[in-house]
């Protein structure tokens, strides 16, 4: 049962420049680079009954892979240089995004939110709070100072913090390194500012390197295709022959 207390304090302190920023790669959508059971069943049905084959997201298309790097500066006015070791960056997009975090206290009175907090929307106890003895108690007063969330007393409980943070999105396209024998999509994003530097190696989608090594193409980013010189279909029987073309038949 919520035993909430209102926000009692929110302190926005001037931040030292050398805190810099947080770098993060945009997560790949769930299932990228994988084939689900349902897709296998749909592929079988498509093959047998002439239906449309299922779409499969390899995360890579003819131009390579497309991802994004998020920069979260502690100071919205922070000036930073940036670049990428391999690939092309698009024009950065600045936006304030709302984050909702559950901050857990384990008989503690001070915890932190994950990203630079620019504006606090709300902080509350959405559920029960327990004392050291395990008794349900009224949630102590909560205060927020920068990224630090404080409870007026050490307790067991989870606070919900909703806040806004500045996120600068750098779109990134990484073509395959055709001259490399491995790690063809390896790249890193870097950012430097007066006081520090950070590096973020980019993670390609699952299976991308292996697909490239085995020349499994994923043109259009949707359908797995196999080159015609790959395994030919089994030898024809005495009764009937069906020849499959992995480029044409599975588009």
């Amino acid at each position, binding site marked *: 049962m919520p035993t909430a207390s209102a926000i009692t304090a929110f302190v926005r302190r001037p931040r030292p420049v050398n805190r810099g920023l947080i770098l993060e790669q945009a997560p790949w959508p769930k299932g990228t680079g994988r084939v689900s059971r349902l*897709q296998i069943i749909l592929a079988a049905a498509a093959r047998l009954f002439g239906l449309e084959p299922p779409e499969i997201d390899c995360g890579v298309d003819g131009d390579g892979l497309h991802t994004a790097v998020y920069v979260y500066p502690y100071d919205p006015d922070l000036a930073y240089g940036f670049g990428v*070791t391999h690939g092309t960056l698009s024009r950065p997009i600045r936006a304030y995004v709302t984050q909702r975090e559950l901050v857990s206290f384990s008989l503690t009175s001070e915890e932190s939110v994950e990203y630079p907090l620019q504006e606090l929307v709300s902080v509350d106890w959405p559920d029960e709070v327990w004392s050291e003895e395990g008794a349900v108690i009224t949630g102590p007063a909560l205060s927020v100072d920068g990224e630090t969330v404080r409870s007026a007393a050490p307790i067991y409980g989870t606070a919900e913090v909703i806040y806004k943070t500045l996120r600068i999105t750098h779109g990134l396209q990484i073509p395959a390194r055709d001259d490399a024998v491995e790690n063809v999509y390896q790249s890193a994003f870097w950012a430097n500012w007066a006081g520090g530097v950070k590096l973020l190696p980019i993670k390609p989608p699952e299976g991308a390197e292996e697909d490239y090594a085995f020349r499994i193409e994923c043109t259009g980013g949707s359908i797995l295709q196999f080159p015609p010189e790959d395994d030919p279909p089994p*030898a024809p029987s005495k009764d009937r022959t069906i020849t499959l073309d992995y480029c044409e038949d599975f588009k």
Partner: protein
Amino acid sequence: MPTASAITSIVKQPLSDAAVDIWARLTQEPIPSSADEANIKDLHQMIAAAMAGESAFEYVYDSCPYVVIIDGVVRITLPFFVWPSDLGLAYDLTASLGTISPGVAYEEFRSFDAVFDHTDSYDYEAIFVGELTPEMPFFRDDGTEIKVQPSEIVTTGSLVTLPEPLTTVLRAEGKAYGFRHELVIEVVKAAPAAEPAAEEEGEAAGPALYTAQDLEAAITVAWLDENGETQSDILDMKIPGCVLDLLETCEDGTPKGDPRRPPGELFYLYHSTCNGEVLLGRWEDGK
């Protein structure tokens, strides 16, 4: 050059004078995911077989080069590498299961990012000879950019060093040097539940009985370090999924059949033309 033999010592040879930090590392030859699990390509092939009037049981995907079955004995071959700090380093290899083939001098083209994140050194897994190309500026910890001359980037064996702790990425293109060995395991698939005596007599001469659940193997490499003390490294070998699948038992406890049937045999499935019920399935001469 070490010439490792099956679970035996290797003739000691002197190290070169250049060796300071002495080590040996083990890695298994990467197993492609296609050897771990079936993919949509396998599915297409099996459907194609069925549509062509053949049994899909006949289809054996060719991405499992780790196993052959000879007279009922399953021979599993798992390649691995020893990467020594010096190609003259003497090392001993032992295996918890199976035998180890003699080492073969091995070199392989490699390309990778040597990432320096607030550090002045990068240690690759193997002796590396090649080119290192900076792909971004060199930054000090305070964010200032400095110039580093190519002569200040020093490669010694597997170690790349910079003149001071910096943040940068060097693209490496070149060759890694080491030794390639093979771990060879011969097993017999576990007998059906109806024949427990065979398992009880597992210590008898000949290949042991194994199922997918109890097949584990580890390699240990041992060498003398710069102080003359014995050091070692252990590698738990990953068994490819296609091998484990072969060793799995069916739901009734019997081993799965050998998919590599003699040429000419086909799996015939007899079914009722009245209600489609499967009456019998068996291997027969395909002629």
